[in-house]
């Protein structure tokens, strides 16, 4: 998708990327309202500065760069100054869509582990494993080198594996993989 020429293009952006952007921001910020605020702000900023998107560069990493920067800004300035907003969405909500207690528990654990990750690691994990960006695209999105992304991903995965909430899950998955290979 190239740089737009009007509100119509913004509409196309929103249709294509808004839901996933909100969910990505939610995973980074841990709060749905903050995520919606951040993404709204991000789309408006991206549209305002759409000329800075060159024709050669791909749209998705560029947009995620705006989203990540806005999230970082919120994490740095807005959220710490605010009195503790309830960390929604309660994962109990998942039960209404998907009645699988095991997955609920795991998701709770993952969210808790994500919150305990430093922001720079959390961002690369979310962009890689939720937004499905390649390492190169993540590098563009966070304005770092690809090697940095790779090392951050490794560090994040190691930390997640050592996190108390996920330790049982990681050992269980390794056991399962052994059984499969065996």
């Amino acid at each position, binding site marked *: 998708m190239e740089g737009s*020429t*009007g*509100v119509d293009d*913004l*509409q196309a952006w*929103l*249709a294509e990327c*808004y839901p996933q952007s*909100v*969910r*990505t921001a*939610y*995973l980074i910020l841990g709060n*749905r309202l903050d995520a*919606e605020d951040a993404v*709204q702000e991000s*789309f*408006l*900023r991206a*549209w*305002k*500065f*759409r*000329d*800075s998107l*060159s024709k050669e560069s791909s749209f998705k990493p560029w947009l995620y*760069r*705006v989203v990540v*920067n806005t999230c970082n800004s919120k994490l740095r300035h807005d959220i710490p100054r605010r009195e503790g907003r309830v960390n*929604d*969405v309660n*994962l109990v*909500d*998942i039960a209404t*869509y*998907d009645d699988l207690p095991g*997955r*609920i528990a*795991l*998701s709770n*654990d*993952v969210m808790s582990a*994500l919150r305990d990750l430093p922001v720079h690691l959390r961002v690369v*994990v*979310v962009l890689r*494993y*939720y937004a499905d960006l390649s390492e190169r695209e993540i590098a563009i999105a966070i*304005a770092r080198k690809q090697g940095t992304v790779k090392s951050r991903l*490794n560090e994040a*995965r*190691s930390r*997640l*594996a*050592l996190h108390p909430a*996920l330790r049982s*899950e*990681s050992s269980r*998955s*390794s056991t399962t*993989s052994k059984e499969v290979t065996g």
Partner: protein
Amino acid sequence: MTMIDEDVLINALNDVASAFEISPDATDRILTEAQANEPPSRSRHVPTLISQPSRGRALLVAAALIVIVAGVSVPLFRSEGNSNKIAAFGPLGSRHASQGSVTTTAPPLAISGTGSAAALLPPGVSGKTLNGTGLTQVSANALKTSTSLKIESSGSIALTVAKGHVESAFTRLSKLATSDGGFVDSTEANVGSRTSGKFSYGTIVVQVPQRNFAKLVAQAQRVGHETSVNTSSNDVTAQYVDLQAHITALEASRRQYLVIMTKATTIEGILAVQSQLNTLQSQIEQLQGQLNVLSHETTYGTLTVAVSEVGHAHGSTPLTGFSKAWHDSVSGFISGFQWLLRLAGPILFAVLALGALFTLAKFARRVVRRRRL
């Protein structure tokens, strides 16, 4: 290293992320706000630091470069200017006057106790020396005093004499000095390799009263064949007058303190006045010493005569031909190397400063880009 399984992570993140419905009104709100804030014309310049380097940035970089280059070059040239100044007014033992043929020699004692080169040139004296004439232009300030002119003269002559006649030349020069009311300050004679048992070259330093200095120079030139003659004179009248005035003032102060001393009744008072008297006495003696040196230098002129046999390469003989070219080449090489060394420091500083500036600009650009997006 244990890592969490990627599939597990993907499923879990998808589960968590899909835990809520996306409000359909949200996109409408964004569109409405975008339409409200849409700029009137698309041709308007969108401010961004990502797209193209602006003229303003280029100007900023150029200004920074100019500042750095100026910051480096001004101290460099200033230091070169200072070194030239020091060379012109520096220690007399090694200096050459601005005109190539004029050379001054060192006085036996330093005039100023401070060691400052500038102090050697008294205020009000231009110090412009005329080649060979021994005359000095003195500014009007110095001439206002009733004191007669105080001129210090010095010179050097290089002579060549016939083989085996170095000693006789020394003898003649000594006689000339003594007959003019002067004396021999020092002599140095050396035996060369070509002659056996006789001196082949040497140097004699003689001092004669100022009034006979020019006469001695003329007579000395006739002792042998002169290869170079350098004389110079320096007017130190103002300095002399200054020293005298200073001493007079200090002596007046000392007299007053002596009067006070007679009226002092307490031990503390006597000690305090005594301390002041000691200080004054010390200053008077120091200045008196300087005055004596100056007086001696202005009373006697110093002539250094280098005598060498014909064919002997004496240090003071001017180089010619290939040897001169070789000498010039070596000295040019050394000068160039010194210049490079002197330049290396500022260049290194400039490179470091530019590097720091570049890093700072890069960092600022990154920050601005993040903020913009």
